[in-house]
């Protein structure tokens, strides 16, 4: 009997003491920290990839809690679902963001773009870029040394050994933009994924004059402007000898694709075009191949 009693008394005493002390301490030393930060952080995917533009998920969570308007903040990894959860937690409006995906805007494969010299430095696009313009006559094009692939944390890229160009595995890409930052040539662009993942873009960034560009690479955009003329929606602009398709204006009519004399305009995930002499042979759901 007495053992049980002492036991109870001891434990209860300790417990009560702990409770009182903790309570007093927490009253006296109160510090306010927004509990929502933790909640939001828990909702985020914890990939810490920095795709949101903040140095990690926690920082993003803090920013989200602090911001009055979170509609222009977005977690590319979690996507709309996560943002909806967050918006819910915070009771704020969420922005609507169309899903993005990375595209490689260079089609200078070994075949299209003859090598004029042989690079032998460290295997890094950034190192090569610090040295010179590249192995080919095009000083805008891809080095093919794979910095972008290295940067991708989501297994969404690989180097195609045949073409020497990086390829994006659309399904894995979360549009974090790491590859965009990694590429010293600004070849990779995050574009809206488009309905049924369909999109059209100019796969070239060469700003040389037409003749120079064409000499360096068969499939370079030569800035001839034919596409811009044929586009019914004024989606294409030519600047510095280079055509650019504005996604927001493009309605995917595909008119520009066949008029390009160098086949520099790429369409992705469209059904095979009406018989056309060209070489496209894209199975519907393979990763976007370099052609």
């Amino acid at each position, binding site marked *: 009997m007495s*053992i049980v009693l*002492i*036991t109870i008394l*001891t*434990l209860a005493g*300790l*417990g009560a003491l*702990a409770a009182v*002390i*903790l309570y007093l*301490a*927490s009253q*006296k*030393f*109160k*510090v306010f920290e927004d509990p929502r930060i933790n909640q939001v952080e828990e909702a985020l995917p914890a990939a810490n990839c920095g795709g949101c533009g903040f140095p990690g998920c926690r920082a993003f969570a803090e920013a989200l809690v602090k911001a009055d308007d979170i509609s222009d903040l977005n977690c590319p990894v979690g996507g709309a679902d996560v943002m909806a959860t967050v918006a819910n937690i915070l009771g704020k409006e969420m922005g609507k963001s169309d899903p993005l995906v990375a595209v490689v805007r260079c089609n200078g494969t070994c075949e299209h773009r003859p090598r004029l010299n042989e690079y032998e430095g460290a295997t890094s696009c950034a190192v090569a870029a610090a040295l010179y313009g590249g192995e080919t006559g095009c000083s805008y094009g891809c080095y093919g040394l794979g910095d972008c692939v290295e940067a991708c944390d989501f297994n969404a890229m690989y180097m195609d050994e045949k073409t020497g160009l990086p390829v994006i595995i659309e399904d894995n890409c979360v549009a974090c933009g790491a590859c965009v930052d990694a590429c010293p040539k600004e070849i990779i662009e995050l574009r809206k994924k488009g309905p049924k993942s369909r999109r059209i873009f100019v796969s070239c960034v060469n700003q040389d004059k037409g003749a120079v560009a064409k000499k360096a690479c068969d499939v370079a955009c030569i800035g001839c402007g034919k596409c811009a003329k044929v586009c019914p929606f004024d989606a294409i602009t030519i600047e510095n000898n280079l055509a650019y398709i504005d996604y927001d204006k493009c309605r995917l009519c595909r008119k520009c694709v066949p008029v390009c004399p160098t086949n520099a305009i790429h369409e992705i995930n469209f059904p095979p075009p009406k018989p056309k002499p060209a070489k496209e042979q894209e199975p519907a759901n393979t990763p976007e191949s370099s052609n």
Partner: protein
Amino acid sequence: MTYFIIIISAIFVNNIVLSQFLGICPFLGVSKKISTGIGMTGAVTFVMVIATIVTYFIQKLILEQFNITFLQTISFILVIAALVQLVEIVLKKVSPPLYQALGVFLPLITTNCAILGVAIMTVSRDYNLVEAVVFSGASALGFGLALITFAGIREQLDLVNIPKGMQGAPIALVVAGLLAMAFMGFAGMV
């Protein structure tokens, strides 16, 4: 001299992590960077010494008095948990920089078996109060030595390419094993 022996023993020979297997979770968990290792060491030292003192009194003044030593586990852990929380609350207010440095580790410490382990060992080895303080401090230092060395190695390993299959926990465990193996050289010194 006995204090000296207690210290050498706790730091090198019977290192709490590498040969007693206590506090392994934080040892593996917060050893990715030297700076966090240092912070954790600070927090552990702080809590371990205080907890040992408090539990010492609980043991002597309550448990042994009333012959209820079977309540050791539960009362010690209750005290430690409350203590950690108290330290956290107080630190947050009183010294925000210290809280920034140690605070993040505090919640981890409740479940660090090294604290409870050292408190129990102090009792089972029948140390007096001074010895208990020395022992707990030295144990914490031993923890810190192992942790910081280990963090140094892990930071170094971050710079090289560890084979895929071994990345993360496996290589960390192997390194810990080799570290423990090296520390066996101190065996028998006291």
